[in-house]
């Protein structure tokens, strides 16, 4: 084990100890601790926890690389994954919080008073979260494997054990505070390298202000080399695909059950609005940094790596060549490394750039700890979501409504352990490219849930038949389009990653048409929907609005 491995390992172990310590300190004692952290998390901290929950291995490891390789076309991820919080905070989160349930399937089941709808929603939640968690476990496997020079599969197993320990112990309450710690670690780890890179390249420590000129210079370098310019739009795709991907990511973000459930942990509608604002601010810190990371990384490679003799490559290339994520082939046979000779996998950009730029062992180790924090925090949130769908929606609400609190807690913990082990087994041999699987999870979440939640909150006439038709129809259309486009049949040049556009549209149309063709829901359910228009203090009943201003004690 070399010195770099030891430094990275110590940093990772220190952070692991911190996470487990936090979850022991915040051990869950009751069901509401376990699922919604007793609804007492202040908006600022909840926003930070959402940031940790949200930013996964894909954001931390993958995004800057995607922007670096794709140029402008990669920015669909930046806008899509932040824009979703607008839809979520404006259209869904406060109302869902006022409705006051534990999970997304529970909202759908109770709002439409339908157990079939609840079951469909619970199963869809488990499928979406499970797909997503495979990506996280594979991501942490890559990091551990690279650092310890272990096979990635051993890395996966280590990740599985750590996650299972602290998610089972702490439940939502423990996960919330570990996510806060994980956010702080991952954002520090992400920003330190780009501050150094910015100093090194431009002499100014504020990367967000300086990388504009680098982007322009990259365009000039590309032009000189005869490549299409870095910032040229729709170079790697087309306009329709860009917009469809942007739409899929935005709507999918707003409909991911593990993100929505974080808004159940605050006290009121007002707190949900502030949570959304803080969350996006914390998320934006990383998302505004990723294009800077990408620009600096490409600039360093273009100016310092490209042009060097191919039989005398820098030392950093060797371990990456061994992983197979970096490939070098002298395509034109001139013995000099050119841009076309490099095949860089997008997932190595964030981890390799500090090595390329010689930022030192501590920074490289910090990046590794940050990447682990990103993967673990998201996995923790996903496990709670899978566990609650199973133990709360299926076991308690459908099978055993008379289960005691301690039985439900036990069921939740068993579900977490089972889900972790199952996801770990699948992640040992992932069924496809990680970023692609995650893109499917967004298309599925948007296509299954967004229209149903949106209309369920805003349209009192929406009924259970509409909800069931919408969820099943949206799911079917999304899956069909994914398989169709994988087989080469596409509409308007939109690829599988933009499938959400069709799924969401089909779901919305089905919800409306089927609801209108079937009898309206009972007055009680319509009143509940109208009640969501007003803050907690106002209650809607029989066409009248009541305000409760008896003195708070």
């Amino acid at each position, binding site marked *: 084990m070399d010195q770099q491995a030891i430094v990275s390992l110590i940093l990772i172990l220190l952070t692991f100890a911190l996470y487990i310590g936090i979850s022991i300190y915040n051990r869950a004692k009751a069901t509401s601790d376990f699922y919604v952290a007793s609804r007492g998390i202040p908006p600022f901290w909840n926003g930070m926890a959402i940031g940790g929950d949200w930013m996964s291995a894909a954001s931390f490891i993958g995004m800057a690389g995607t922007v670096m390789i794709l140029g402008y076309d990669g920015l669909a991820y930046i806008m899509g994954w932040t824009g979703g919080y607008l839809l979520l905070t404006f259209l869904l989160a406060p109302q869902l919080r006022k409705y006051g349930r534990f999970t997304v399937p529970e909202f759908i089941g109770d709002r439409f008073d339908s157990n079939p709808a609840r079951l469909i929603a619970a199963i869809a939640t488990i499928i979406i979260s499970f797909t997503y968690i495979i990506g996280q476990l594979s991501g942490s496997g890559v990091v551990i494997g690279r650092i310890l020079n272990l096979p990635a599969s051993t890395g996966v197993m280590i990740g599985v054990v750590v996650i299972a320990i602290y998610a089972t112990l702490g439940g939502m309450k423990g996960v919330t505070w570990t996510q806060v710690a994980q956010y702080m670690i991952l954002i520090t780890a992400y920003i330190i390298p780009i501050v150094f890179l910015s100093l090194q390249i431009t002499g100014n420590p504020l990367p967000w202000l300086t990388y504009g000129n680098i982007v322009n210079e990259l365009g000039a370098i590309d032009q000189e080399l005869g490549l299409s310019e870095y910032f040229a739009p729709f170079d790697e795709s087309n306009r329709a695909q860009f917009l469809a991907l942007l739409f899929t990511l935005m709507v999918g973000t707003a409909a991911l059950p593990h993100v929505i459930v974080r808004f159940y942990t605050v006290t009121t509608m007002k707190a949900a609005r502030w949570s959304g604002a803080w969350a996006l*601010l914390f998320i934006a810190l990383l998302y505004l940094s990723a294009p800077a990371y990408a620009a600096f990384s490409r600039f360093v490679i273009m100016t310092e790596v490209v042009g060097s003799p191919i039989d005398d490559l820098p030392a950093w290339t060797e371990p990456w060549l061994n992983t197979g994520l970096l490939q070098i082939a002298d395509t034109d046979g001139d013995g000099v490394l050119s841009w076309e000779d490099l095949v860089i996998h997008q997932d190595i950009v964030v981890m390799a750039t500090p090595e390329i730029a010689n930022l030192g062992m501590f920074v490289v180790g910090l990046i590794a700890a940050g990447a682990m924090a990103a993967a673990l925090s998201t996995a923790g949130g996903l496990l709670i979501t899978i566990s609650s769908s199973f133990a709360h929606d299926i076991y308690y609400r459908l099978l055993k409504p008379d289960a005691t609190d301690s039985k439900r807690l036990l069921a939740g913990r068993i579900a977490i352990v089972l889900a972790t082990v199952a996801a770990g087994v699948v992640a040992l041999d992932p069924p496809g490219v990680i970023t692609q699987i995650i893109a499917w999870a967004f298309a599925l979440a948007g296509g299954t849930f967004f229209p149903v939640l949106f209309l369920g909150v805003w349209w009192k006439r929406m009924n259970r038949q509409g909800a069931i038709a919408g969820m099943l129809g949206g799911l079917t259309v999304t899956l069909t389009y994914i398989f169709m486009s994988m087989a080469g049949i596409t509409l308007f040049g939109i690829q599988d990653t933009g499938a959400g556009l069709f799924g969401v549209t089909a779901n919305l149309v089905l919800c409306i048409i089927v609801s209108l063709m079937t009898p309206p829901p009972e007055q009680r359910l319509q009143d509940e929907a109208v009640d969501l228009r007003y803050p907690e203090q106002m209650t809607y009943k029989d066409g009248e609005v009541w305000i409760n201003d008896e003195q708070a004690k």
Partner: protein
Amino acid sequence: MRKIDKKKADQYFKIRTTLIVVFLAIGFLVSFGVAAFADVILETGATIMGMPAHYYMGAQGAVATFVILLFLNAVISDRIDKKFGIDEKQNVKLSGGGADH
């Protein structure tokens, strides 16, 4: 509990909804609106912060606008609540802890 005029409650809902529609329209323009015409904007040669304007909007402009919109929404909604005499302490008490279900 006391009854209030339904019109007043509807007014509350109308103001909040208008706010949401306006904010979402702005958010839509800076993301989808700019992206749909990215090639046209590139041809104009406009730059923001030293980089081509369409690239800036995708990398920073849209995200910064989203953050500002969410904070404006939180602040303005608090003012609306206050104007309609909503007491947040009462909301907290009514929404209860985890024992509400």
